[in-house]
């Protein structure tokens, strides 16, 4: 029996071992149901109830599952949102998850959980396929790597405070010593991201030319958000080209900042408004990155006082009232965010900003299966015509399929998101793989009159395979540092792919074909 003989080859067992590893790491879930928690917003109802964001290293299938809300079993993301929407404000909801049960007070339209449909496997679709925003940031001036880390911390905090929790932040450097920060966010608009990440976020409250307090926890101990009693939209008025609304919210100052307030205001003179109330001669001006956001009058009672509660205000605009309110809410959230998280240690700029619609992703995936199938069929066709033997064609096609499967397993294992670059890498690896299989087959089949053994011929085939392997790896290595880290994934997947091929699938193929043809 040839089959028994094949099972005696260690190369075949080695391949089976890797197939098993890949299967475990992909860990396909046949009964995936419900939603998983990808992030929890800071200070949201969910975080106050004790829910936490998963660490970015947690594999998708191992993330916290939301099983039910108020005993209603959750089927998918849409269902989750409709359930949350139905629950009236100021009421308690009980969320049963894989980790435990939480009681949340719904005090806002969102409870602050970023969810996704329960994954069917650990293969994560990248930004190109699931949609989202990718930003490449670069410091304006040269800075050290520890400063890069500081910037990344502030950015992450800023995004989280703003309500964006499903994200990854990585740093990268390039061939010319340029430093970059790559941020990928699921579900954020381009404008939001541009405002949040593209600016240093330096907030200053000044009276005259004296700074009273700045953004960040040193001066600001509390910022009122999500609470109608101290944070609100006050009035909307028509303007020349639309509508404008104002927002106000309260903050608490630290003792030091309050002392500064007393110091700066104590010698100011009084003015009287038309209504007759006494105000200080100078206003308090709020600046964001050097631009005046708003100015407020200071009442007489605050003169020389160590005021710890301060009102912040600003405004938003829009074509109509609805969009003006939305814009005002966005502006307010942005300002609250920078007040909480403070300014970046140094200035950065957006050098690349991609915002990808999720609508094409699914289409691309369906299409990718079709293309893969057609590609495999065309490979099958050429080798069938050439070799006219199922003993060669079937092991070859199986070898290609296993190779793709093991590459996907590696991607899942190293939590590498499957994006366009990764797919291109898989194609590249499989393409060279087919080349190698043909070389191995021809060396095995070659009818030589001399006494050279089959073993020696296969050895020669592997010499060619290894040299070809070395040149492919050589061609990919420079990509690790070129292109600000955006091409690293492609290079990595290609190298992993050709390595799996050379060390795992091709030896197995060679020994199987040799046994079958003996």
């Amino acid at each position, binding site marked *: 029996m040839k089959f028994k003989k094949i099972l005696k080859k260690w190369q075949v067992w080695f391949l089976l071992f890797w197939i098993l590893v890949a299967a475990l790491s992909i860990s396909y879930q046949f009964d995936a149901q419900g939603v998983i928690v990808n992030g929890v917003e800071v200070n949201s109802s969910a975080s106050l109830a004790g829910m936490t964001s998963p660490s970015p290293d947690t594999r998708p299938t191992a993330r916290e599952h939301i099983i039910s809300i108020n005993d209603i079993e959750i089927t998918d993301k849409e269902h989750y949102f409709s359930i949350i929407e139905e629950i009236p404000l100021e009421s308690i909801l009980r969320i049963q998850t894989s980790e435990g049960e939480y009681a949340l007070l719904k005090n806002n339209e969102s409870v602050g959980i970023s969810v996704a449909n329960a994954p069917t496997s650990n293969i994560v679709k990248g930004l190109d396929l699931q949609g989202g925003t990718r930003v490449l940031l670069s410091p304006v001036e040269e800075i050290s790597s520890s400063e890069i880390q500081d910037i990344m911390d502030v950015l992450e905090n800023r995004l989280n405070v703003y309500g964006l929790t499903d994200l990854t932040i990585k740093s990268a450097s390039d061939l010319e010593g340029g430093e970059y920060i790559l941020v990928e966010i699921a579900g954020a608009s381009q404008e939001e991201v541009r405002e949040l990440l593209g600016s240093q976020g330096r907030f200053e409250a000044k009276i005259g030319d004296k700074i009273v307090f700045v953004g960040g926890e040193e001066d600001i101990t509390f910022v009122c958000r999500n609470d109608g009693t101290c944070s609100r939209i006050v009035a909307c008025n028509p303007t020349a080209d639309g509508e404008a609304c104002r927002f106000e919210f309260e903050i608490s100052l630290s003792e030091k900042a309050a002392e500064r307030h007393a110091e700066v205001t104590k010698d100011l003179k009084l003015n009287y408004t038309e209504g007759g109330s006494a105000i200080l001669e100078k206003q308090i001006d709020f600046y964001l990155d050097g631009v005046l956001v708003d100015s407020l009058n200071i009442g007489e009672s605050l003169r020389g006082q160590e005021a710890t509660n301060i009102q912040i205000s600003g405004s938003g605009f829009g074509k109509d009232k609805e969009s003006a309110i939305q814009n005002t809410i966005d502006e307010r959230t942005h300002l609250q965010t920078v007040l909480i998280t403070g300014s970046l240690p140094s200035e950065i700029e957006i050098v690349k900003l991609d915002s990808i619609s999720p609508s094409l992703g699914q289409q691309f995936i369906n*299409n990718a299966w079709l293309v893969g199938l057609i590609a495999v069929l065309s490979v099958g066709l*050429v080798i069938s015509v050439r070799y006219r033997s199922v003993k060669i064609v079937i092991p070859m096609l199986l070898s290609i399929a296993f190779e793709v499967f093991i590459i996907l397993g590696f991607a899942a294992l190293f939590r590498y998101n499957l994006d366009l670059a990764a797919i291109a890498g898989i194609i590249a690896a499989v393409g060279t793989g087919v080349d190698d299989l043909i070389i191995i087959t021809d060396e095995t089949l070659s009818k030589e009159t001399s006494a050279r053994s089959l073993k020696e011929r296969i050895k020669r085939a592997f010499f060619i395979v290894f040299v070809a392997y070395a040149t492919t790896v050589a061609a990919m290595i420079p990509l690790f540092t070129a*292109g600000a880290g955006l091409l690293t994934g492609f290079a990595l997947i290609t190298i992993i792919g050709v390595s799996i091929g050379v060390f795992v699938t091709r030896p197995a193929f060679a020994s199987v074909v040799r046994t079958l043809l003996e």
Partner: protein
Amino acid sequence: MSESKIGKFYFKHLKKLAIIPLILFILALTGLIIQASVTGDFMNKDVSLKGGISSTVYTNQEIDESELKAHLGVDSNTRVLGDFSTGEQLGIMVEVSDLNSTVLEEKLESFFNMELTQENYSVEETGPKLGEAFYRQLILALIFALILMGVAVLIAFRTIIPSLAVVFAAITDIIVTLAIVNLFGMQISTAGIVAFLLVIGYSIDTNILLTTRVLKKKELSVNDRIKASAKTGLTMTFTTILALTAGIIFVTSPVIKGMFTIVVIALLVDILTTYFTNAGILSWYVKKKG
């Protein structure tokens, strides 16, 4: 012509055939130099390399591309994206360098008469400084890759002339392919340059096969060694070309389409460089060494 007649003709004229890729190489190089002196660059860089915005509106509205271009009012590229398998139009892709993203979005909204949202609109914006850095570094990466590849081949074969022949074949593949791509007026993206790196990985396979067979398979005549390796090598090349062509037709992503097109052109060029020039050099080299 029967197989043996082709073989006879081929081996009789191998020295002359070897010149063909050399001529192509010189023509291509001249073309690239002319291109560079006219446009300032060896290739038509797209917005990912020169800076600008590439945006896609997902709509099945049929439009007149020239009207869209006129509406945008700046130098632009437009393309209709379709799914070949269903025959449906997926969207319209627009590339501009001289508009900011807000203005572009407004212009597209007024042209298509629809509100662009995250659902129906993708936009990729590359700053000009980053685009230039990508370009410089990828060209550098390409040169590094060639050098590393040369070192790998030299270590493997331990002989100078055959190794140089392999490196020369790779350079010819890249230069001639680039000239052809320019001739078609195709723009090259970041992924396009990466495709040239893949060319190094792919096209070299047949050269390595040929060199190994000719230098190491001592029991056959040189011509038979070349013939046998051509049989294997051409099977390799045609499977890849067929699979990639299927990809070019069916894949919906313009990025992948572009990469595949470059690799297919390079594989076609490589048939000539491998079996004319490299085979010619190897045949001469082995005969000289006795």
